[in-house]
């Protein structure tokens, strides 16, 4: 693996719930000052907190460059609504939207809706994969130049450039086309945590960014290789996927008790890999993992966002920039550009032009 692949960094801005925008806005601006690729905001129907996609929409006009990636759960929300809301986040942020697809496995969540009972993770992840699939089809269902405003014929759109998706999933079907025109990035960025077995297939088939929870670069590389193999089997170019190590960080006792080495005794907070130490140690760790080629970067979850994100940006990121390992400015405007991902063409446009050529 080459050591000079660009490093990608992202951070979670959740923490204890806040119901005003100011808290989230301050953190997103801080992340933007550190030229992070994106911020995430976790969500679940069963734990206190506001709707994450709403929060990131609220702060979109007040930020300029940082990518905005809310968790969106697929188990109880209609796939058509998921697709419309994420596309709209891309419109209001002018091309900075992504979504972290998650499932809701608990009976408590099922009871909030009263429509279906809890199901095993495997079935829910299969459905999540189908939701990601139909969302992408809906984003493609308007070709980029479908709006023609042709005064000669009186046509606002060229309906030949709009497409029914006619998707039949195992638990739902969608006719299409989207009600939202194709978003600025073509397709907003899809993020999936691919660590668990049930999520690997959907990650390999549909994710642009795959999060991996691992305690050594070797473990991370093993998951990455497996996802890449599966992606290739689905006809995707594995180079189109970005792999980020997911790490919960506690930079609280930076000066006194550094505990840098994940390898030398990782601690687990919930299901996340956990790092406790100083900003400099964190920079070392990021550098080491990235040099090893195991991952393209890190998704950091600060344990105390207001304190730790400040230390990440002013300490860890500043050092990585000083060492020329991380960029000092955003070279582009969209999240895809930050991640070095191309803007996909609509599959329907490709099919149509191929048909015309034949």
């Amino acid at each position, binding site marked *: 693996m080459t050591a000079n692949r660009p490093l990608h960094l992202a951070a979670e801005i959740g923490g204890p*719930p806040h*119901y*005003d*925008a100011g808290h989230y806005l301050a953190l997103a601006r801080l992340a933007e000052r550190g030229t992070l690729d994106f911020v995430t905001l976790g969500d679940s*129907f*069963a*734990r*206190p*907190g*506001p*709707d994450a*996609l*709403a*929060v990131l*929409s*609220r*702060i*979109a*006009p007040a930020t300029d460059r940082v990518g905005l990636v809310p968790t969106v759960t697929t188990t*109880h*929300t*209609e796939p*058509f*609504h998921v697709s*419309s*809301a994420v*596309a*709209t*986040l891309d*419109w*209001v*942020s*002018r091309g900075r939207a992504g979504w972290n697809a998650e499932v809701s496995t608990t009976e*408590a*969540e099922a*009871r*909030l*809706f*009263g429509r279906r009972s809890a199901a095993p993770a495997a079935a829910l992840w299969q459905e999540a994969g189908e939701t990601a699939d139909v969302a992408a089809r809906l984003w493609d269902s*308007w070709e980029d130049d479908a*709006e023609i*405003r042709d*005064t000669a*014929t*009186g*046509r*606002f*759109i060229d*309906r030949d450039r*709009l497409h029914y998706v006619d998707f039949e999933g195992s*638990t*739902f079907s*969608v*006719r*299409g*086309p*989207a*009600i*939202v*025109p194709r978003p600025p990035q073509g397709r907003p960025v899809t993020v999936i945590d691919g660590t668990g077995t049930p999520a690997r297939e959907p990650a390999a088939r549909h994710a642009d960014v795959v999060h991996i929870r691992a305690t050594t670069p070797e473990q991370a590389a093993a998951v990455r290789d497996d996802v890449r193999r599966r992606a290739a089997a689905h006809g995707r170019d594995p180079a189109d996927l970005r792999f980020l190590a997911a790490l919960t960080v506690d930079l609280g006792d930076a000066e006194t008790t550094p505990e840098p080495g994940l390898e030398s005794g990782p601690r687990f907070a919930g299901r996340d890999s956990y790092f406790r130490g100083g900003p400099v140690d964190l920079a070392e760790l990021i550098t080491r993992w990235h040099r090893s080629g195991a991952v393209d970067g890190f998704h950091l979850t600060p344990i105390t966002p207001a304190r730790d994100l400040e230390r990440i940006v002013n300490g860890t990121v500043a050092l990585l920039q000083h060492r020329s390992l991380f960029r000092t400015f955003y070279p582009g405007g969209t999240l895809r550009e930050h991640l070095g991902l191309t803007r996909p063409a609509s599959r329907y446009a490709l099919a149509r032009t191929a048909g015309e050529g034949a």
Partner: protein
Amino acid sequence: MHLAAHFPGVNNTTVWADARSESQIDFSSFEHLARTAERGKFDFFFLAEGLRLREHNGRIHDLDVVGRPESLTVLNALAAVTDRLGLAATVNATFNEPYELARRLATLDHLSDGRAAWNVVTSSDAFTGENFRRGGYLDRADRYTRAAEFVATARELWDSWTPDGESRPFAHHGRHFAVSGEFTVPRSPQGHPVVIQAGDSDEGREFAAGAADIIFTRHGTLEAGREFYADVKARLAKYGRRPADLKIMPGVTFVLGDTDEEAQENAAEIRHQQISPQNALLALEQVWGRDLSGYDPDGPLPASDPVPDSDLVQGRVRHGDPLAVAARWRAVSEAKGLSIRQTVIETTGRQSFIGSPRTVAAQLTAFTEAGAADGFILVPHLTPGGLDDFVDRVVPLLQESGTFRSEYTGSTLRSHLGQADPVWKG
């Protein structure tokens, strides 16, 4: 008087071919119209919804504006660029679930510091249902029973946190919903987001009388407006509500000019742009329920009667009995000697207030004083600049006469409406 701004969405109000017409999708358009409305001290900004693209004769309708972003997401973004303006989203009660929508609405109310509103619509057709798990499962008769239970359930969720921030479990077991658990969002600044109802049937009016804070109506003539107003306000008492608890706001268009004559000329020009020859035939087909593409828009109306239960038009509510509509159109056409296109221009215009700024201000005031409306939802014909003139030229006159506020006195939408926050029912 209350005023709201409707972002001109998917229909032929928008004159998209006008050189001043910009994007219907870019956030900058929403921001422009919302900032203008706030500059004019409007009560709220309104977004409509359609969950499937309209079809005509089995094909996607391509003459009018098509496509729009999802409402609640846009309104959350607008909360960042406005301070006082109410933010109203149309969201269908049939294709959503109470827990999720109550949470999204409470979130908007928090993130906007108390400016959220929900326009509860009830379209239940199987055509729209093809985009959803639900499919077209709901009988027409059940639309409002589900909507009413939906709103009641949402209110139970919003009341499940005490005003001092304590969360209590909720449980609702009704005909349409069986939900229980804990709501994740504390009581929002307005207690409950403002509820708007749009829909004209007896069931719709009854639902509004029991549950809504605002009715969005199409009754735009003075006579029809007074009748509707009296009917709806009379229904409130049996729910223990006062007339001021439900504001009646028709959706109306307006055309300004320096003089009344100039405004009339502008209006004729706009109607001509809205009803192109192609759009005239289309409107005719929507009533007649069959393909009339062979007809000459500048010729007479068809001699035969409409097909009553046609599905030629999908995704748009058919208003009124087609036979009655056709009879009315024929009468207009014969009395005035009008062609198809002229007849459509004549009969399909929603109430327009047309004139100099002074005339329009006087007309609006006469309407509210005559008991035909509590205010208006203004639908401009240009995006995004279509409200600029109204705010710059009409609003100051309404303010001078004391008919409309000169400053916001509160910060929440309920305070603009002069309505108290709902009492907490723990």
